[in-house]
């Protein structure tokens, strides 16, 4: 590349404000779809639990949604939403559904039968059992799905740069870099996305460990 360095540190140093702004945007593009997707997936999972045929149908639909290329999805949704935050949020949310519904259902299914029987036999109502027994015990598998959905969303959100400067996130660096043949921005966008994804994953692992102290308690660890 013409003997120029791949990343011009000087440029990066001049643009911390921009980096911070695009980080906030990227955070928004990740957090909103994952949280919204989780709420929707949880409700769907509770509804299809114990209805295997419906579950298969739901997973089929979520699978189809997952296969739509993200750029195509943004353009499609943009027909209805104009260029707004929703243009990216809606497809990003639907992408999380396949992973999250599966993970949440797997979480519920991992609750041992004897535990459910004991809960019922001791006089938990169905709602109490769901909230106090099934949900907490489903957390480890749910969290695995949330981590995967988060990392996936961080990657897919880079394509949301088509939304322009207001919402674009780290993807903006990639787009601008490509347009201006400026390698610093390309590498910066890529590195920031990866660092964000890895950091988010580590944070979620930490949160999960704090939320499930019992999962690490084993016979050896007295």
């Amino acid at each position, binding site marked *: 590349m013409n003997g120029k360095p791949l990343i011009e540190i000087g440029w990066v140093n001049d643009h911390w404000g921009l980096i911070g702004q695009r980080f906030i945007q990227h955070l928004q593009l990740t957090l909103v779809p994952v949280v919204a997707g989780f709420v929707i997936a949880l409700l769907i999972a509770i509804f299809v639990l114990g209805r295997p045929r419906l579950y298969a149908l739901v997973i089929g639909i979520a699978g189809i949604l997952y296969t739509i290329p993200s750029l195509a999805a943004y353009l499609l949704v943009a027909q209805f939403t104009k260029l707004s935050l929703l243009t990216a949020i809606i497809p990003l949310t639907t992408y999380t559904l396949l992973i999250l519904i599966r993970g949440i259902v797997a979480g519920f299914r991992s609750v*041992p039968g*004897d*535990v*459910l*029987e*004991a*809960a*019922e*036999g*001791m*006089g*938990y*109502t169905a709602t*109490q059992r769901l909230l106090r*027994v099934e949900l*907490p*015990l489903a957390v480890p598998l749910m969290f695995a799905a949330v981590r995967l959905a988060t990392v996936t969303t961080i990657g897919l959100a880079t394509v949301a740069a088509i939304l322009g400067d207001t919402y674009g996130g780290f993807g903006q660096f990639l787009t601008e870099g490509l347009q201006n043949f400026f390698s610093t921005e390309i590498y910066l966008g890529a590195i920031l996305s990866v660092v964000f994804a890895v950091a988010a994953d580590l944070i979620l692992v930490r949160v999960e460990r704090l939320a*499930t*102290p*019992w*999962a690490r*308690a*084993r*016979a050896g*660890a*007295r």
Partner: protein
Amino acid sequence: MSVPTGHAATVEYEHITKSYDAAALKKGAGAVNDLSLTVPAGKICVLVGPSGCGKTTSLKMVNRLIEPTSGRILIDGQDAAKRDPTELRRGIGYVIQQVGLFPHQTIEQNVGTVPRLLGWPAARWKARSEELLATVGLDPAKYARRFPAQLSGGERQRVGVARALAADPPIMLMDEPFGAVDPIVRERLQNEFLRLQETLAKTILFVTHDIDEAIKLGDIVAVMQAGGKVAQFAPPAEILARPASEFVARFVGTDRGLKRLSLFRVSSLDLGVPTIAHVGDDATAVRGRAAADPLASALLVDDQRRPLGWLLASELPSSGSIGPEHTVPVSPLLDRRTTLKDAMSLLLGSDVKAGVAVDRTGAVLGLVTVAQITDWVRTSDDAVPDKPFEDEDFTPVAEG
């Protein structure tokens, strides 16, 4: 803080039938057919039978985890079907084979499950948890904050029992509670359970497929056969002495005579009276008396009547005085509380014809021979074992 203990309730099955379709039956659901029996308050009633006989189904109908197709279950005379299932269950202790502790809760929280559902304040349910952990032999200081995964199988099972007792329910349902632990732990849990029940006096319905467990634990036993019929409903001693049918006889096993021996103790025998000699007695006189004894021997005792050894008539000196040097060892030594099964086993394994029964101080009570035990077996069909059994209001009502 603690709730008064001792209240127990009767449980009556009135023409209970539970039918399943063919698919469910294939999966092992046990149907029940016109089951009527009354479990007396404060007693352990064991439902025993081969798999698929409907014993677990019958159990789970009491706390309405399974609803009967027809018939009624009365708890203290009140129809269980008319009560709110959730409220009903909170008043019935429930212990299952896999225990079903909540893995995400501490032992303390697990034991406090029902009190918490009932809305007890934290201080109260915590105190209750501690009290119960101590009751089942687990040190609260050590165990309260642990998670179930950090306990052994036997410890988990104890926590399961503590959890079932938490709100002091008048009834406990126990579905093969000791089935998943090894035989040594099982034996210990059974003994602790019996000791616990002596003070708690709950009405306990206990399901097992193990006839030995049924005999050991049951005040009254319902032997069930395929299709959910009660083949016999009687105290264990009676089932062993007089099986009501070919099925019951086969189910209790050909060694039922021996099993019966384990229910009775040396104290229920009329002990033989030995010929007694004291240290320093005249040898000639003792020799004469020993020769006249059916066993051709005398028992040498010290001044506390504690046995020192057997004096065999043929081997006694003809003059001088008798001392410990003339004896052969007294074995086996039996206790009043030794079961007849153990006594029999000890006698068969020794060279002597008679075992010596002693009291708590070690003083001779009398003699036990194999012949005595076998005679007793033949004549004692109506004998009542030494278990706390003989309450006057305890009349089994049976048949299904």
